């Protein structure tokens, strides 16, 4: 008797296996890559516009202390768009995302501990 755990994804995997030796092409539905690209470009344009205004026109429309949280928020949104759509985390196994985020959570905790004296 074999004690190999049954793969819960076996049926899904079997369906993914090619059955036709001539490499049958199954129509793939792709994530909205170009829409995400457009958002990344728009967010980048918003991100750089205050500093461009400062470099080319000599003034920044947003005070620096407001700018920092705004820019960090936009950067996190852009990073999340890349991870969810281009790295397929939105469509892939949940635990892959959890695995990549867990060291980040630890790093943030340790960073916080070090940063507190400052």
């Amino acid at each position, binding site marked *: 008797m074999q004690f190999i755990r049954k793969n819960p994804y076996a049926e899904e995997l079997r369906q993914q296996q090619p059955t036709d030796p001539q490499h049958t092409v199954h129509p793939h539905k792709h994530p909205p890559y170009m829409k995400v690209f457009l958002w990344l470009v728009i967010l980048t344009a918003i991100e750089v516009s205050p500093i461009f205004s400062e470099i080319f026109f000599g003034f920044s429309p947003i005070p620096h202390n407001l700018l920092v949280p705004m820019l960090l928020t936009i950067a996190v949104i852009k990073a999340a768009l890349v991870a969810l759509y281009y790295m397929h985390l939105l469509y892939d196994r949940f635990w892959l995302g959890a695995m990549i985020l867990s060291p980040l959570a630890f*790093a943030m905790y340790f960073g916080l501990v070090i940063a507190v004296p400052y």
Partner: protein
Amino acid sequence: MAIDQHVAGGHAPPHAADAPSTLTVGVGNRKLGLWIFLASEVIFFTALIGGGILLRLSSTPGTWPMPGEVLNVPLTSLNTFILIVSSVTVVQALAALQDNRRQHFRMFLVATFILGVTFLSIQAYEYYKLVFEEGLMLSQFTLHGHHGEADVVVQSVYGAAFYIQTGFHGMHVLGGVLWLSFVTIKAFLGGYAPDDYEGVEIFGLYWHFVDLVWILLFTIVYLI
């Protein structure tokens, strides 16, 4: 292989060698390995970026330049755009392969390669300008005086923080370009198929991760 056969229903699937190698976790071994590698990269980059932030927070006032004071933000914005476009070309290459559009698949790989090399070239040009014209060194930077004022040399670890963060990222792009050259050559030699795309997919995951890190670095190092 025995386990593969077991989970796939006790018979070897046709083209078993082309299919993603799979254990009981539902993700190909190579893909799982790459994700574990990326998790370690998260630790690495978080340490570097976190170290940079802590150095900045603990620096003496006036020893950390304001955004755009030393660094060339417009040039780096162009580089950011190039890296984002290269991420799109990678996913389009993968989509073209999955749809069996071989010509598009190869074309998008070549486009990604060109964009990656362009990013590195611009970064090399940026470093050259910073070192030889702006005077940004590991332990000091130069504030150029306006209207005939003398230049001021400021002792600071700003340069060290800048070069270690962007340089480490640049080495990752270089690694990605080298990896991509192998993928592209294999693609032109007839490698990969609509049901054998794991090699392209895992390269894409690495490339997007490098893009993702740049998105964060660009904001933290150049904009704030």
